[in-house]
């Protein structure tokens, strides 16, 4: 019976076709990614605003050239990089600090590390709305705390002075646990011998951290930072839910600008060009990180 089934299956898919059939799903996914990508490149090279169909035509990179003299674009680039850089660095520091505190395996530490994952379960847009309520000047608990400690007129997301701080705070609340859990896994998987040897030699804890823990943890740090950086440079939901990119142009990051360009202004050409610039930045950043990660791995192998 089994033999018959196997034979029948063999007849259905010939051995020569089998590799192609097995790779078909991957191929379809690639096509599903490549078609919109190529379409976006094509649109980005056009003057294409849906409300002016008569004006549509190829302008061969003019959208990109205009960015050079467009102060809005440079502001978007600056805000996106500052946002991504600040959130990744702060979340890395906080995540590492929490991971170090929870490094020792114990029931309490394991329980706390699981509890700390809660914000990751919250959709970022919902977290932003939650913070919007908590920073409401009439009834928000965070606004109340600020008044108690003497900041009577702290305006959170509604003032250009504090808007960036506010959205970074939300980002930190949501994503620090992500850093923490990756680094904690890294810390707990480090070999114990170097630490035991250092303890025998009487190396101070701080020295151990700088000379042993940090270098050995670096591949994990780079991996966590890369994931967060790629996500953070594409930030949309927290900022849009909190301030729609305002006040003024304070938080006008790439995705918010591209979204407004497409859905509100129906300016497809500019929107596509913005997203391709974002793709290029993401590509460069991920390359830098991957190269460094490989270099570290090579060094670790050489050391061993």
């Amino acid at each position: 019976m089994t033999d018959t089934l196997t034979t029948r299956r063999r007849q259905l898919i010939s051995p020569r076709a089998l590799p192609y059939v097995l790779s078909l799903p991957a191929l379809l996914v690639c096509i599903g990614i490549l078609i919109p990508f190529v379409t976006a490149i094509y649109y980005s090279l056009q003057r294409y605003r849906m409300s002016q169909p008569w004006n549509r035509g190829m302008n061969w990179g003019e959208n990109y050239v205009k960015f050079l003299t467009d102060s809005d674009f440079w502001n978007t680039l600056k805000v996106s990089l500052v946002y991504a850089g600040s959130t990744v660095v702060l979340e890395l520091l906080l995540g590492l600090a929490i991971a170090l505190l929870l490094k020792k395996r114990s029931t309490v530490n394991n329980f706390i590390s699981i509890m700390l994952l809660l914000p990751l379960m919250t959709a970022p847009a919902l977290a932003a709305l939650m913070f919007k309520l908590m920073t409401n000047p009439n009834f928000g608990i965070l606004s109340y705390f600020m008044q108690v400690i003497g900041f009577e007129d702290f305006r959170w997301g509604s003032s250009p002075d504090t808007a960036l701080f506010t959205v970074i705070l939300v980002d930190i609340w949501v994503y620090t646990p992500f850093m923490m859990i990756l680094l904690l896994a890294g810390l707990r998987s480090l070999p114990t011998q170097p630490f035991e040897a250092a303890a025998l030699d009487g190396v101070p804890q701080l020295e151990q951290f700088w000379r042993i823990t940090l270098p050995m943890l670096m591949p994990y740090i780079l991996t966590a930072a890369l994931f967060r950086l790629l996500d953070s440079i594409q930030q949309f939901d927290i900022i849009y839910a909190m301030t729609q990119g305002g006040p003024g142009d304070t938080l006008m990051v790439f995705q918010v600008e591209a979204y407004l360009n497409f859905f509100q202004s129906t300016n497809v050409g500019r929107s596509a060009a913005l997203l391709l610039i974002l793709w290029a930045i993401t590509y460069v950043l991920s390359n830098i990180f991957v190269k460094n990660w490989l270099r570290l791995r090579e060094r670790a192998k050489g050391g061993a």
Partner: protein
Amino acid sequence: MYEKEKDAIGAFLRGEMDRRALIRRLGGLGVTAASAGTLYNMMATSALAADFDWQKHKGKSVKLLLNKHPYTDAMIANLPAFKDLTGMDVSYDIFPEDVYFDKVTAALSSRSSEYDAFMTGAYMTWTYGPAGWIVDHNEWLSDSSKTNPNYNWDDMLEGVRKSCAWNGVPGGELGSADAKQWCIPWGYEQNNLTFNAAMFEKAGVKVPTNLDEMLEAAAAVQAGNDGVYGVGVRGSRSWATIHPGFLSAYANFGEADLSNDGGKLSAAMNTAGSKEFHSKWVKMIQESGASDWSTHTWYQVGTDLGAGKSAMIFDADILGYFMNGGENAMAGQLAFAPFAANPAASAPTPNIWIWSLAMSKFSKDLDATWYFMQWASGPEHGLFGATEMDFVNPVRKSVWDSDVFRERLNKNYPGYVEMHDVSAPGASIKFTAQPLFFDLTTEWAATLQRMVANEVPVDEGLDQLAESMNSQLTEAGLR
């Protein structure tokens, strides 16, 4: 049951009895306003059916894309009447406003035939129309074989009707002779004052009648009531910040968004008059607005008034209407007043938002869809919605003439009817119709935010805005 009442309404529909006589007669028969509305609607539907083949598309189905709104609720409540009248079926998807227009843009730009008709604002049709996503409804309005003889298109308020018609030429006058009727008005909002009468009384402040008085009144009422700010206006980084109170007041001073020189458009918001107006508006928000004004959409403006956190709003009249009912803390305590910002102006000139219905060009059966459109925007459904549901503001004169409707408003919404009557003649869209509408207004809102935050002085901010707009207009070939 109700035979005498039906006779009375039948006589009215046949023109044998005037409206006041009908009201007296129904009152005499002990009929409540709500029951009278139902009876009227039922009778009117039957009367309509007699004059027009409403069953022509029997068995067909229409699918709608709708925004979550009291207008939608009123329509759904009355849908059985449409189904009975036509034998057609209606299905719909409802989305919250936050994502509604994204859904519309996605459906139309992908040329999807899923939806036959959808809710829209007139401003959106300045994109949808030229993009070729919606039809010119004049084709159906002018075809007597497709439109029921009692539809009475001229019954629609003129300013509202014309505001939904544009010839597609950038800067072209709304409602011009060659205009295309991109959408059919359904319900609309004027922008006027809704105020908390008790707070004004407590502070000994009288209701402002122009912008200077509004600045003073807002500051005084704020000083006279603890934990309350003076005036609620929108402030989020969105086109929606510009169109309500702000543009209504701006237009009242004779100021414009763009100038039109023989078809060439230029920014007009950096004139001396505009700068003076902006200075006052910014000062008003800084001194008496919400401290988180820059995140305020219509929702926060309304809920703060309803919760007793603000003393007045200069925003959509229907926002005040809804805050004066339901579970709001201030329900029943709000009052309404018309507002002309310019002391030299003879009457208010509210810019208006019009929730409208439009047929998708990709609908598979436009004639059948038009049956739904003419019913939903017809006088009977308008009267039903206005008298039995919260379908305010009606876009039809006949509904505004309804004593049942006016009495309902007068009973619970002091000053509302008068406010509407005073403002309606000047109510229309005050923006220049052109394809960069959303770019212009969103950037305008962002500039306003920078001015209020003292990031840029008013005159400099407006010069920068005008320069930016002019370069975008040039780039789009409009200047």
